[in-house]
């Protein structure tokens, strides 16, 4: 009986986003009915071009959207509680303690007038109620655990005395200080050296093992995704186009957009010797009111004129194409079989 009660709870997702909608004040929708599920100890990658709404989604999850953007609908269920309904005070208790964030440019995320230890100690003192001395000792431990040499000395340094990789390690220490369950990492390695990128990703992986952490990794770098994420969600024009286990999606993408993204990132020349690029840009796709939003740029549709009517006629739904694998394409089944054959 007890086992039966415990088992489903354990399988409960940590975070469940349903029909999330974010709009500009002018009414323009930026995130349009996004569904996303993150399990416990799971690394989910959210990929897509610039302007697809990845970062906005991340900010919406911690309810820190800038004034110009508003959360207009949907629910964000975190451990059974709806974040959308929480008050500002409740949100402040949650931020840093349950959900932490990591950003792209670590050096500008650190206050130039404060020493490293005061900033890493912030969440400890606020969420864990440690006093100054205890917090400092804990900060030194944390800095040590994120691989900073001579942590007691570095703790007294200022942010401008740190390299980019060091600063990102410090930010990880600050984000992990209060022991959150979900880390939202918004392009955490984009601004860093390639060699440092790997170190930071390894560190994030180690943190996940150590403290039962789930990670939402926002990136446009597919090589990071395949090495690091359990599941991938491909975002385009405020919607999820394909979502599923990393390995399957990377090997046999069922959406033309995912396909194009992967081929672009391989940097393999086409037959004519040029690198592939997806024609057009995704920035206007939000204005497409009927039909598939990717249709104007879709390579598949250009080679298969018979799809025109369906793709321009109505938008495909996000439908299951496999176990835990969903795709938003009229031709998803065909593509999957094509992939099987190849």
């Amino acid at each position, binding site marked *: 009986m007890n086992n039966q009660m415990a088992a489903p709870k354990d399988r409960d997702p940590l975070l469940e986003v349903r029909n999330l909608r974010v709009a500009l004040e002018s009414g323009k929708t930026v995130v349009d009915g996004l569904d996303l599920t993150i399990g416990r100890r799971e690394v989910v990658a959210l990929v897509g071009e610039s302007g697809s709404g990845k970062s906005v989604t991340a900010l919406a999850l911690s309810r*820190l959207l800038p004034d110009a953007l508003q959360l207009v609908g949907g629910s964000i269920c975190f451990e059974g509680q709806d974040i959308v309904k929480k008050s500002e005070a409740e949100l402040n208790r949650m931020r*840093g*303690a349950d959900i*932490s*964030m990591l950003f792209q440019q670590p050096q*500008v*995320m650190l*206050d130039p007038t404060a020493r490293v230890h005061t900033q890493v100690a912030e969440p400890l003192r606020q969420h864990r109620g440690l006093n100054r001395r205890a917090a400092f000792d804990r900060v030194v431990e944390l800095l040590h655990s994120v691989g900073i040499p001579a942590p007691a000395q570095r703790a007294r*340094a200022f942010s401008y005395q740190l390299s980019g990789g060091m600063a990102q390690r410090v930010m990880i220490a*600050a984000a992990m200080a209060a022991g959150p369950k979900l880390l939202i990492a918004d392009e955490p390695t984009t601004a860093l050296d390639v060699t440092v990128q790997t170190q930071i990703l390894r560190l994030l992986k180690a943190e996940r093992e150590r403290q039962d952490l789930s990670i939402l990794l926002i990136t446009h770098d597919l090589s990071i995704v395949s090495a690091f994420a359990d599941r991938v969600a491909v975002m385009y024009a405020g919607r999820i186009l394909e979502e599923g286990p990393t390995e399957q999606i990377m090997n046999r993408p069922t959406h033309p957009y995912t396909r194009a993204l992967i081929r672009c990132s391989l940097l393999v020349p086409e037959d004519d010797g040029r690198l592939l690029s997806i024609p057009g840009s995704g920035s206007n796709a939000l204005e497409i009111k009927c039909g598939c939003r990717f249709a104007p740029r879709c390579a598949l549709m250009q080679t298969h004129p018979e799809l025109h009517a369906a793709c321009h006629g109505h938008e495909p739904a996000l439908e299951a194409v496999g176990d835990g694998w969903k795709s938003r394409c009229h031709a998803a089944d065909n593509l999957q079989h094509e992939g099987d054959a190849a």
Partner: protein
Amino acid sequence: MDIDMSHNTPTPQRRARLAVIYGFVSSRHWTFKVGALLLAAVLAMVFFAPWIAPYDPGAQNLIHRLQPPSASHWLGTDHLGRDVLSRLIVGGQFTVTVAAITVVFSLVVGTLIGVIAGRVGGLVDEVAMRVVDLLISVPDVVVAIFLIGVFGSNYFTLILSLTLVGWTPFARLARALAKEVNSREYIRAAEVLGMRRSFVIFRHIIPNTIRPIAAVSFLRFGHKLITVGGLSYLGLGVQPPNPDWGLMLAEAQPYLERVPLLMIAPGAVIFIAALSVTWMGHGMEIERRRTGKQDKS
């Protein structure tokens, strides 16, 4: 990158601190250095006045009135035969003290209100800034004359009346700076970690706005020196027979043609005191602009 870890032994650390102060001063523009020297001289004069004044500033000697400078009276004597140099040395106390306290109060009140308005925004910002607009249109001398008329002239009334209007430029500046700092990424980082509003304001916003505010506070200090001098000149500050720079100007007026030094001396001292802080503030602003340019390039 070197971090001094020998905090158990105080001497190297104190030396390091002195080195920091020396580094701070020596890296400034020359106006800051000259201003700092002048201000140090003025403050030392005011602070040690009772010991360095050669005569009692109130002692009258009607036989030796309105004398030109001599070996015994370096700056001569005034219309009651009092030693001008001694009166100058002692006469700075009131003006400098009132100006300094006023600037500190204005700085604290103005910065707090400005930073909170800039950070919180919305209605709070709107109300605070309209109050600033209202007060900025009232000259501080008028407020001072009114309050002195009601409560009489003393330290408290003067400081109150000058602070009442004096905080507004600080509030305006602090608000503008807070708005700018508020858009910086590290504020976002603090919010993401769920930091309290007060923590963000005191730990992140104020430390990042205080340097330009400090530069302006020097300029305001010079401004206040002149205002207090002006009030004393109008007879609203120190009452005779106590010495004061502004009062000395007023008393010297009838003798302007016979002994112009009586008016030139206190005027020059007010000028030098105001100039010293203005130059310090100016030097800091120049430094700020220069580093600002470096940041961008």
